[in-house]
């Protein structure tokens, strides 16, 4: 029962932050596309000039006009496989390791220095 209550509290806080974020993004009016030009359809001139470029030959099925979804152009599908995953993991682990070293190393040096100072002061006495 206690655990259930705690889960409920976590979910409530999560929901509250989520609601704030959704309201914030919607209120700022940037939830819709903000790519310059995106959303507006390209139309050739009234005389039909400008698109497609001269010399462009679409395939017989017309597929030449549009890249297929799910291909390399789609961004996030099956790019690197296991090797890519490994490289990505190594890169992210390195970033985390760098941050750990940047925080832990100065702390341990200061602690060591303080301990040495204390030792030298007691031997001097």
């Amino acid at each position: 029962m206690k655990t259930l209550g705690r889960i409920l509290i976590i979910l409530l806080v999560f929901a509250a932050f989520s609601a704030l974020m959704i309201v914030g993004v919607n209120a700022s009016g940037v939830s819709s596309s903000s790519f310059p030009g995106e959303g507006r359809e390209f139309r050739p001139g009234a005389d039909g000039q400008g698109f497609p470029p001269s010399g462009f030959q679409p395939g017989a099925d017309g597929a030449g006009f549009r890249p297929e979804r799910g291909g390399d152009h789609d961004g996030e599908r099956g790019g690197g496989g296991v090797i890519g995953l490994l490289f990505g993991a190594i890169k992210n682990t390195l970033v985390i390791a760098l941050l750990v070293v940047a925080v832990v190393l100065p702390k341990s040096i200061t602690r060591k220095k303080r301990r040495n100072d204390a030792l030298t002061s007691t031997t001097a006495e």
Partner: protein
Amino acid sequence: MSEEIAVKNTPIQTSTKLWLDIILFLAFLVTMDPRSSGIAIHEWLSLAVFAVLMLHLLLSWDWIVSVSRRFLGKLGLQNRLNYILNWLLFIDGTLLIISGLMISRVAMPLIGIQLPEGFAWRRLHDMSANFGLIMLGLHTALHWNWIVNTFNRYLIQPVARLFTAKPKKDAAV
């Protein structure tokens, strides 16, 4: 003098937390690279990570409650920093999940929810993921002593004991 928080966990709780954290870390590494893992794995694994994160929070509940009570009073700098960082991590995680759900291509459509893909949510998802990586690095750094000690006690020492323990026959002789 600042007051330090000492929360006593049972060995089972501590080892469970260690294994959960190892799983979370590995899952985080996989979800951080959707190009390689594929979008379906990225989305479902991220939702699973959310559930495991809940367990992680439940196991740290006593610490959260005691620091929340003393935050405005006497509290050590490390605990205070940790507390603020953990809240930032939680807010960033919330943004990561919400923006991920907003641009979902597999999980949300599967349950029948189709959302128009907004560029802002996508940008927020990328930004919060990068910010989350930095926050995770800082979170790891602030808990480094705990990680080293727990790793040593619950992983390295038991394995080392397996190799150094004398066989029973020798002990009897």
